[in-house]
């Protein structure tokens, strides 16, 4: 639709600022009340919920970790039974990977990306609401099952035949498989929204080379999700079919293949690591720029590194399977490609170092976390190169060495940047700063606690302690190191506790932040903190990658949108030239109904295949309600 001046509707350019705010707020706001809260499609409200929920799962997963450390602190300890321990380590892994790490990164993006690209809502906002409800339902299913002694006990990667019908009696493995379905549906939904938001809803002038680096990371991450997640959906669905109706996908006697599971799983599972890591890379780039007070060194290099990491991510999966007896040539190839990932990672590290080196770093808490990240992640990267070599991997496979390695890359590579990001964006979301003093303690405790906890695990692994054992005999002489690890884990846990306490306290008592407390350059800080329901009264127009630094006095803005209905600006993919005004859906309760109907079907289908038939009727009904035109202005395109 063209933006011709003779159009009959009221356009925003005829209104003064106060009147415009009032009208926009009337159209975009989420009213008070439970019903409205359930029906909202505001990306900020959903993003906030998403983040909070993910951190709840982090805390729960952390409690499980503490429980495991209690059990392992002494040889032959009896804190819990072997069966309970199996559930606990499986829950810890599945929870952290599927309910915390991936969702929290997407959650940050759901909140931040629309603000960073200068639009009023995420693309497909109702899908966004649906995705959140599905995510919560998946979490409830998993944790509810655990409470009822029905938690999966097959490891977070659920290898067949252990997870298959013969060796995993009951419904525990099915709970795992269906939890996958829940979280994948929600992750795929968010990925699609992000790709469309980033490609088609950028502020005028935000050409590809002016996109904030966090947004670039999320774009690549979203593509990884779209390409990788179907593999695990296929895998978990085949597993549930094998278990429920006796298909033979993984039964070699009937022509199935056990190894197929590992291929499908790791074709997803390895990119999964980058799905968690790349957003963190984007966060680090953002923090490094803001706190070194200069544009990033090597923008193009960083973007290309992120993209090439994304591509390489799909050529590495077999390095998880080195001990399955694959052909030599294949193993060599995957060793090579695994080591190659060090190149883009190295490029990024050096770009950040160069930025910090040539800037004037301001040592605030977020930057402390970046330093913690740099050290820890490089350590994890080093052991990564070590386990990429087949002989070494054969030696340490399934030992604590691997546990140490992946905690270094996942906690060091993703959780540290995330905590920095929370300190950084907390004022954006709440309008208040978290405490600088407490933050330093948090950073210190977490960094020191982490290294004391996980470094000794390398040694345990080299000494031969296997992972996933619920106890070990005293004669192995692993007791003292394990006790040391368990004590250090308490330091780490206290750091996290302090972090949560600081966040809670700052919600109410933090220092009011103002709009842009860090003097940051990207668009999310161009609006008030917290932002109004419509994000920007007038959409910003961008002429550089650091708009708030380059146009300090006043940002250029675009006009011509209708203030009497929800509207976003659609722009071209490469140059972000305005193309059309597009309506954006209103709040709707139907995504919630659809999510409930879908959840019922998915849980029911653990018990009988007929659930898929009968359960799809309510889903179809809910979807019809969702898409039925309601006669609102947003309906006429």
């Amino acid at each position, binding site marked *: 639709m063209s933006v011709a001046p003779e159009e009959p509707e009221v356009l925003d350019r005829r209104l003064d600022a106060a009147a415009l705010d009032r009208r926009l707020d009337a159209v975009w706001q989420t009213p008070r009340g439970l019903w409205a809260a359930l029906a909202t499609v505001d990306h900020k409200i959903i993003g906030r919920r998403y983040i909070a929920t993910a951190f709840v799962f982090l805390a729960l997963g952390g409690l499980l970790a503490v429980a495991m450390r209690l059990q392992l602190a002494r040889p032959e300890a009896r804190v819990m039974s072997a069966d309970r321990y199996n559930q606990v380590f499986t829950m810890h892994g599945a929870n952290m990977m599927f309910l915390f790490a991936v969702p929290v990164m997407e959650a940050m993006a759901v909140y931040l990306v629309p603000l960073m690209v200068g639009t009023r809502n995420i693309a497909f906002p109702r899908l966004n609401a649906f995705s959140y409800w599905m995510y919560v339902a998946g979490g409830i299913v998993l944790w509810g099952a655990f409470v*009822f002694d029905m938690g999966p006990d097959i490891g977070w990667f659920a290898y067949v035949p252990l997870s*298959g*019908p*013969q060796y995993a*009696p*009951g419904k525990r493995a099915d709970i795992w498989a269906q939890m996958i379905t829940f979280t994948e549906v929600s992750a795929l939904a968010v990925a699609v929204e992000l790709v469309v938001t980033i490609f088609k809803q950028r502020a005028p002038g935000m050409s590809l080379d002016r996109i904030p680096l966090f947004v670039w990371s999320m774009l690549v991450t979203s593509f990884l999700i779209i390409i990788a997640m179907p593999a695990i959906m296929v895998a978990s669905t085949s597993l549930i079919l094998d278990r429920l109706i006796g298909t033979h996908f993984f039964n070699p*006697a009937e022509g199935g293949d056990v190894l197929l599971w590992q291929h499908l799983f790791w074709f997803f599972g390895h990119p999964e690591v980058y799905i968690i890591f790349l957003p963190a890379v984007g966060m680090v780039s953002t923090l490094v720029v803001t706190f070194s007070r200069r544009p990033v060194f090597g923008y193009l290099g960083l973007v290309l590194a992120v993209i090439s990491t994304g591509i390489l991510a799909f050529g590495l999966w077999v390095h998880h399977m080195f001990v399955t007896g694959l052909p030599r040539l294949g193993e060599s190839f995957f060793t090579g490609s695994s080591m190659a990932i060090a190149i883009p990672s190295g490029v990024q590290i050096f770009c950040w170092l160069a930025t910090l080196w040539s800037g004037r770093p301001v040592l605030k808490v977020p930057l402390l976390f970046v330093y913690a990240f740099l050290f820890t992640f490089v350590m994890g990267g080093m052991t990564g190169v070590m386990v990429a070599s087949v002989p070494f991997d054969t030696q340490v496979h399934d030992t604590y060495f691997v546990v140490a390695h992946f905690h270094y890359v996942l906690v060091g590579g993703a959780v540290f940047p995330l905590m920095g990001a929370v300190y950084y964006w907390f004022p954006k979301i709440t309008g208040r700063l978290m405490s600088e003093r407490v933050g330093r303690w948090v950073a210190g405790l977490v960094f020191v606690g982490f290294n004391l906890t996980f470094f000794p695990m390398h040694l345990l692994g080299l000494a031969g302690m296997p992972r996933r054992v619920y106890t070990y005999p005293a004669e192995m002489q692993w007791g003292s190191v394990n006790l040391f690890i368990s004590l250090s884990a308490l330091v780490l846990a206290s750091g996290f506790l302090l972090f949560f306490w600081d966040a809670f306290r700052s919600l109410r008592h933090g220092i009011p932040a103002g709009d842009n407390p860090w003097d940051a350059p990207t668009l999310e800080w161009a609006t008030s903190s917290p932002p109004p329901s419509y994000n920007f009264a007038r959409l910003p127009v961008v002429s550089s990658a650091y708009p708030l630094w380059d146009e300090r006095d006043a940002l250029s803005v675009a006009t011509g949108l209708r203030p009497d209905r929800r509207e976003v600006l659609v722009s071209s993919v490469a140059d972000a030239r305005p193309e059309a005004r597009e309506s954006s859906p209103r709040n709707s309760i139907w995504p919630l109904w659809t999510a409930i109907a879908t959840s019922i079907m998915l849980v029911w289908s653990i*018990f009988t295949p007929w659930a898929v038939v009968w359960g799809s009727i309510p889903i179809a009904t809910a979807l019809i309600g969702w898409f039925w035109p309601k006669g609102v202005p947003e309906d006429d395109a």
Partner: protein
Amino acid sequence: MTRRLLILAGLLALAACKREQREVRLDPPALDALDQVALMPNGIGGAPPDVLPALGRPYETNAYQLSQGKRLYGWFNCTGCHANGGGNVGPALMEGWWRYGPDVQSIFASIRDGRPHGMPAFKDKLTTEQIWQLAGYVQTIGTYAAKTAAPTRNDEMQSRPSESRGPAGADIAPPSR
């Protein structure tokens, strides 16, 4: 209304608990009591031991116990004489007709003490608990109603529909008693 729902949810929860629990080692007194089957003089029928209902009939309803039974069925070569339930030297166990009674205590007795026409006694080879696991499992081979706690297929060639899908014996004509 809400209270009733809560109670229902609680019961469901308890049921779920029991069904998924993995009791690996029973208390010795409970084990002793499990051996006290009060059979009729002809070695058939009678009453199961009192602890069985007190434990919640785990060998018929608990997923783990049932699958242990299935495993023992293979390990102790029941297949050698009964095949996968279809019968060979020994009678079929899946067609819903039992020479020595369909109740679990009769099946338990058949396995523990053996039967005159060629069924060996297993009391010296298996623990009481294992015999109960077998008895519970054997009952589901020919199950006439699908049982979600029952095990499903093994990683083997498939000879019949899995126990959880039942009724496996449907394609065998039901015998007229």
